């Protein structure tokens, strides 16, 4: 009951002195705003990377055999980069050798890509597209589906037919208001017949999944993508999660044999998995999490000092009130509690404003297409931290108030 009375007194204080309260709380507000904001950025990116990005780029239970890592989020040293450049290229011979060695239930695809200029009868010079030469199982591995027409067939792969499956942005760009099916798309001067339009997949961290066109690896597409020189990667999908490491070991052994590497020599290729991509992301996440801890901490420490200061002023201003309350029977702990509740209420109020601000940051970033998700735990943490800061900042002023001599306090002006 008295607890509620103390909260009411504190809220009255905030209502009467809106501007002063705001400035008092600005540290806590900013601290909590950063906390919510940074956590929402980390969570949002995390979701994007783990579910969207890694899933779409690499696929489930999948690894890529590549010359060098494709996803380099961490830092790569100059020496590392040069040693990668000296590595032998991945060829289609490697790819077919791997295919031959794989267990029956594993999936396999060649994938190579190059950004090229395109043309159609309806658009002479449109935006460049990402041309990809793939074998048909690629679509199964990546879970790519069509909204119109069909995907590439094994027959088209075997015969090397010049057909393409295109993304929605390509369809809109080169066949505006037309049904692209059966029409011709020219890539670097070579004609391809459109046989399918993929479902919209959207953008992820700057990569536009809808600006791709896929043709059979054996078709003229391998010329368009320069796949006669080398190929970007061989995609292998294990039948299930448990088999993934076995299949990886098998492929690694095969590649080492083909490259005639001695035991003890390092691999001169990479088997890139979602995990290895995540390892790079984890490094970035650590930095973000550190920032997410450091920035709010600075804000909250400053906030605590300001609140303590304001509470000391409040105790001084209300010395007489404290005297009156003591004369009327308030014990030390009653006075202490009154000021503690007041500083905590103030601080929690600031935390609530900060949470609102954090939602604002998160919402604004979403507006400009940056993925953010406000984590429920960060809201709870903010309220708890707000209360904690209030108690911490209020303790010393509250103790000073509680220890006041009622006679002296009553006499003060």
């Amino acid at each position, binding site marked *: 009951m008295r607890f509620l009375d103390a909260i009411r007194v504190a809220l009255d204080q905030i209502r009467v002195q809106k501007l002063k309260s705001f400035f008092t709380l600005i540290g806590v507000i900013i601290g909590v705003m950063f906390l919510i904001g940074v956590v929402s950025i980390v969570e949002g990116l995390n979701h994007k990377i783990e579910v969207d990005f890694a899933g779409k780029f690499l696929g489930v239970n999948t690894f890529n055999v590549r010359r060098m890592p494709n996803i380099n989020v961490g830092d790569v040293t100059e020496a590392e980069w040069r040693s990668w450049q000296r590595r032998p290229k991945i060829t289609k011979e490697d790819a077919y050798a791997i295919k031959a060695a794989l267990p029956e239930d594993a999936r396999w695809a060649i994938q190579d890509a190059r950004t090229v200029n395109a043309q159609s009868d309806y658009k002479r010079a449109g935006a460049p597209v990402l041309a990809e030469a793939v074998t048909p199982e690629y679509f199964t591995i990546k879970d790519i589906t069509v909204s119109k027409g069909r995907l590439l067939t094994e027959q088209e792969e075997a015969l090397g037919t010049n057909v393409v499956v295109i993304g929605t942005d390509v369809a809109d760009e080169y066949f505006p208001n037309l049904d692209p099916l059966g029409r011709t798309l020219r890539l670097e001067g070579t004609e391809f017949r459109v046989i399918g339009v993929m479902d919209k997949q959207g953008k992820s961290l700057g990569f536009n999944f809808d600006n791709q066109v896929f043709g059979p690896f054996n078709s003229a597409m391998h010329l368009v993508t320069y796949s006669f020189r080398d190929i970007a990667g061989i995609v292998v999908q294990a039948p299930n999660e448990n088999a993934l490491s076995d299949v990886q070991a098998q492929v690694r052994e095969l590649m080492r044999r083909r490259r005639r590497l001695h035991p003890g020599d390092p691999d001169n290729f990479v088997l890139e998995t979602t995990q290895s991509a995540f390892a790079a992301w984890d490094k970035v996440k650590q930095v973000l999490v550190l920032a997410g801890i450091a920035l709010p901490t600075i804000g909250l420490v400053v906030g605590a000092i300001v609140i303590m200061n304001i509470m000391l002023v409040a105790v001084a201003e209300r010395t007489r009130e404290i005297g009156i309350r003591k004369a*009327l029977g308030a014990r030390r702990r009653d006075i202490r509690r009154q000021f503690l509740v007041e500083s905590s209420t103030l601080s929690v109020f600031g935390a609530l404003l900060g949470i609102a601000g954090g939602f604002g940051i998160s919402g604004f970033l979403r507006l400009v297409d940056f993925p953010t998700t406000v984590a429920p735990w960060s809201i709870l943490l903010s309220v708890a931290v707000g209360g904690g800061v209030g108690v911490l900042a209020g303790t010393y002023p509250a103790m000073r108030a509680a220890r006041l001599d009622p006679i002296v306090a009553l006499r003060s002006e």
Partner: protein
Amino acid sequence: MSTFTSEPGLSTTSERQAVTSVVGAAPSKEWVIVTRGITRDYDMGGEVVHALRGVDIAIRRNEYVAIMGPSGSGKSTLMNLIGCLDTPSAGEYWLNGELVSRMGDDELAHVRNREIGFVFQTFNLLPRANALANVELPLVYAGVPASERKRRAAEALEKVQLADRMDHRPNELSGGQRQRVAIARALVNDPAILLADEPTGNLDSTTSDEIMRVFETLANGGQTVIMVTHEPDIARHARRVVTLRDGRVSSDEPQAKFVGRTAG
């Protein structure tokens, strides 16, 4: 009629001497205040100031006593001690049968809450709270539930004829009204003594009379009233006047006009 012992609200000198001389014994219940040789020394930067040098006072339930004295006589110190805002350096102070001179801070707070109703010269109302909330305050610290608090505070305000001013803040009330709110607040916990410190010091003469009539009514109703004042005009209203000089009781006399007056 031979003595005034039959007069409720007055004690005789011999009775008072009897009760203040038995050191260590709890006085009987009819004595609401008994002090035995209380002293109060202050350390003023190495120099000890003796504000009280052994004060024996006994006040019976229902008495209406004025404590007088020039400034520096120790009357403020005595008031603080009687009001349990301070404890004596030596001596005993019994309030309503309890030895309060040995109590700690929190126990004193409890005693102030239950046994003493303060009325101050400067009213000492909380400026941001309305009259009702001000009167409720002692009940808040007594742990009385909100609904009962409101009811009792409203009753107390009705007794001082302020039922229609309950939701006014102190700055919306006149001086006399403020002091009546303070009186209602002092009485709301049904204390053993009403302790008034220069209750009319900030009021004009008309309002002073009005406040003194309130005290008169309370005293006639059986409330023990102790009033600290330096104004003889105000002290005149009390049945008995204790005068302090240099930290000692210099006189303790019933007011002549009340001597021999019968009850009723």
